């Protein structure tokens, strides 16, 4: 049910040409997906998606729209080539899922590699009831540290890109400063 709603939101995103509406729809899409994560037992992921996907990224998009204007031109070329690429890729992916085990089957191999250990032992080893937290902070702590590095690098990148903005005045004809 939620998945069908998501598909509808995705299509609306594709059609919309007013970027303001598109960004709002993207927020709704994000919120729907957070609901889906809750249904699929991933409560921590749902928190993060609702806060980051529906909250922060919508704000970032709105900020960028304020600077860039919110009208999108009609695409100038025929959609046939992209459509073909997309259909072929999608067909291959669907073909790939034919070998995947069914949704929700407890015997799936993905559930029996290290996940058993985390669920059975993590409380004795780390004494945190939330398994996601103990895996994130302890077993895969280096991952989380790498993630922090990525966020830091992104922050530096954004600052470098936008640092000169305050010093430059756009030309009155709105064509930028040409640097």
């Amino acid at each position, binding site marked *: 049910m939620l*998945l069908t709603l*998501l*598909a509808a939101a*995705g299509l609306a995103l594709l059609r919309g040409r007013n970027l303001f509406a*598109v960004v709002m729809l*993207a927020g709704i*899409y*994000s919120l729907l997906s957070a609901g*889906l*994560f809750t249904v*699929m*037992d*991933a*409560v*921590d*992921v749902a928190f993060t*998606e609702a806060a980051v*996907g529906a909250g922060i*990224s919508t704000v*970032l*998009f709105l900020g960028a729209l304020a*600077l860039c*204007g919110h009208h*999108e031109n009609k*695409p*100038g070329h025929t959609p046939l080539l*992209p*459509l073909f690429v*997309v259909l072929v890729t*999608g067909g291959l*992916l*669907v073909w790939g*899922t*034919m070998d995947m085990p*069914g*949704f*929700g089957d407890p015997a799936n191999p993905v*559930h029996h*590699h290290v996940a058993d250990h*985390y*669920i059975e032992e*993590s409380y004795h080893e780390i004494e945190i*009831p*939330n*398994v*996601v937290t103990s*895996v*994130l902070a302890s077993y895969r702590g280096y991952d*989380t540290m790498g993630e922090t590095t*990525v*966020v830091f690098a*992104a*922050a530096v*990148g*954004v600052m470098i*890109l936008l640092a000169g903005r305050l010093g430059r005045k*756009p030309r009155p004809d*709105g064509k*930028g400063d040409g*640097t």
Partner: protein
Amino acid sequence: MSLDLLVSHYNYWVVIFLMMVGFYILISRGNLIKKIVGLNVFQTSVFMLYISMGKVSGGTPPILLPGEEGVLYSNPLPHVLILTAIVVGIATTSVGLALAVRIKEAYGTIEEDEINAIDARTEAAE
């Protein structure tokens, strides 16, 4: 048989559909911000694929109930990976938007074809 397949793989197929919608927006639209929206849709659909794989029917969220035996938990590992991916995703989105703002400043537009036309004119002038 085929109905079983539909029920057990419906999640994966809708996820693939969303993935392809995002991919299509990414490669067919000329507006840079719309492209980034498409990239976000693509990303979220990958998250959904992982979380679908971690779900166990009849399972509960992987928060342990000490003292209770035989509780079936969903797989926590995909959740952890996707938490990391969401945060990295917002980082890449913000860099992409900053680039779009910078391009708007330099070219006065964020439409790909107009940017290409301006580039071609500049090259011809040189």
